[in-house]
């Protein structure tokens, strides 16, 4: 069985595209769309990597990231953050909260796939 990714995103067509791309690469893709229960979903599913959108219903991706990092179980879990807000302050905020990599929308499929592979292999922000 391939490695597992949890995609936390609320745009159905983005979910569908990412699910297709990663599935073809051998990943098992699970999805979650509600910010309020996202931390709980990560704890339950224990994915190898989390792809986390910033603008989610009920709770922001930044708050979810902070809560995950505050928990020893998720301290080093690779988290790739996706956002339409690519300003420096957003990037700084994500880095301060402990993101593994921060990717601005719109991204290319190959760019996203490459980063997921690298994070799964233990490479984070600034590596390679």
């Amino acid at each position: 069985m391939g490695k597992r990714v949890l995609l936390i995103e609320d745009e159905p067509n983005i979910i569908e595209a990412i699910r297709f791309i990663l599935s073809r690469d051998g990943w098992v893709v699970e999805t979650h769309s509600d910010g309020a229960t996202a931390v709980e979903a990560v704890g339950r599913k224990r994915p190898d990597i989390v792809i986390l959108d910033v603008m989610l219903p009920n709770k922001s991706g930044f708050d979810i990231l902070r809560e995950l990092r505050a928990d020893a179980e998720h301290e080093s879990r690779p988290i790739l953050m996706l956002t339409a807000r690519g300003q420096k302050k957003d990037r700084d905020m994500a880095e301060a909260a402990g993101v593994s990599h921060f990717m601005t929308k719109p991204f290319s499929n190959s760019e996203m796939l490459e980063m997921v592979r690298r994070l799964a292999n233990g490479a984070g922000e600034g590596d390679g």
Partner: protein
Amino acid sequence: MPRSALTGTRIRERRTLEGLKQADLARTVGISPAYLNLIEHNRRRIGGKLLVDLARALGVELSVLTEGADVPLMEGLQDAASNAVARTRPAGRKAAVEPEAERAEEFAGRFPGWAELVVAQRDRITVLERRIEALNDRLAHDPFLSDSLHEVLSTVTAIRSTAGILNGMGEIDREWQARFHRNLYEDSQRLAQGSQALVSYLDSVGQSEDTLSSPLEEVEAWLAARDFALPELERGAMPDLTGEGGLRSAPARQLARKWVLRARAEAEKMPLSMVEELISEHGPDPAALAQAAGVDLAAAMRRLASLPAFENRLPTGLAICDGSGALTYRKPLDGFAPPRFGAACPLWPLYQALLRPMVPIRRVVEQQGQPPRRFLAYAIAQPQRPESFEAPEVVEATMLFIPLERLEISPREAEVQGIGTSCRVCARMNCLARREPSMVLEEPEEG
């Protein structure tokens, strides 16, 4: 000869007209000719007993030398100098040349046209800065703009990923292909709608460029053009908020409508005939009016400050603030102009009232100026009618002020509260309420 705006220049004009020599006038009032020369050239401030003596020696009423002396011009110049210093001195560096703020009066006396221009430019810069601030704020915090941009970028992301799958990922099932084609179509529709909404919105921002100064300022300008009185309300009608000379922006109309509806209800409870009768009997006393009409004190103050012209109408000013102290209504008077921007003087009875809700305050206050002007101020802070038991308490403070010279009141000096407009342009020494240094006072630096 046009009358000069400045007291020193007027003294010189009057002396010349009387054929008096500078030395003779100086001797009469007990000062040196050199000092009188400085006064006449607006290089020394003058007030109090010396000004009274000079008026007597020149055989004129005090008001001939002082009335209409352009306090707003002087405050405007001081403020412009203060802003210039703040702008040209980054991070503790002293500017090579700073405006000689202490010589503002001399400058205004010698070059009145230039002085007016400096103040007009200051006003223009302030308006432009507020527009930039409003635009920045809109770009950073406008929820519609933020949501629209997010929507467009999310849709573009979906289109890009889906198109990439169809174009570059080899063989795809027919079912998946159909699904992605449908997604592309849906997302392209969303993108078109989102982009159109965004463009319309940005267009509307461009069109409202000249109305970006606050809605409150627009309403105040509209009321000022009507002498802060709306005669339509006396017969229960509504003034035209939108027609010629009306309010241009929707938020301003919304604000004005709220004000007008309240004023109309108060005009109905306190008809002009009743108010006229009470004023002729008790003077402009809000307590007497409130009692006679069965209304609260703040309503009586607002009514007294928005009466249409009649024979015994006295000049009245009004300031209203919310619980944060922000001024939400300003009706200025000559010699007592609430600041347009920034915070006012914390010693105003308005703010003292805010500290003690429901306790009425009546004080004689003295505004700085040449000469200082005294006003009788009434103030009260009242809670707004709550919407429910759970609703937070919202307080509004109201202050009515009337020139003391128009009332038959002679307060003892100890009863007079000295106040200012705002700290930056206030020359009151050793003021406990000062929150920032004055630019018209030379105060020694500590340490």
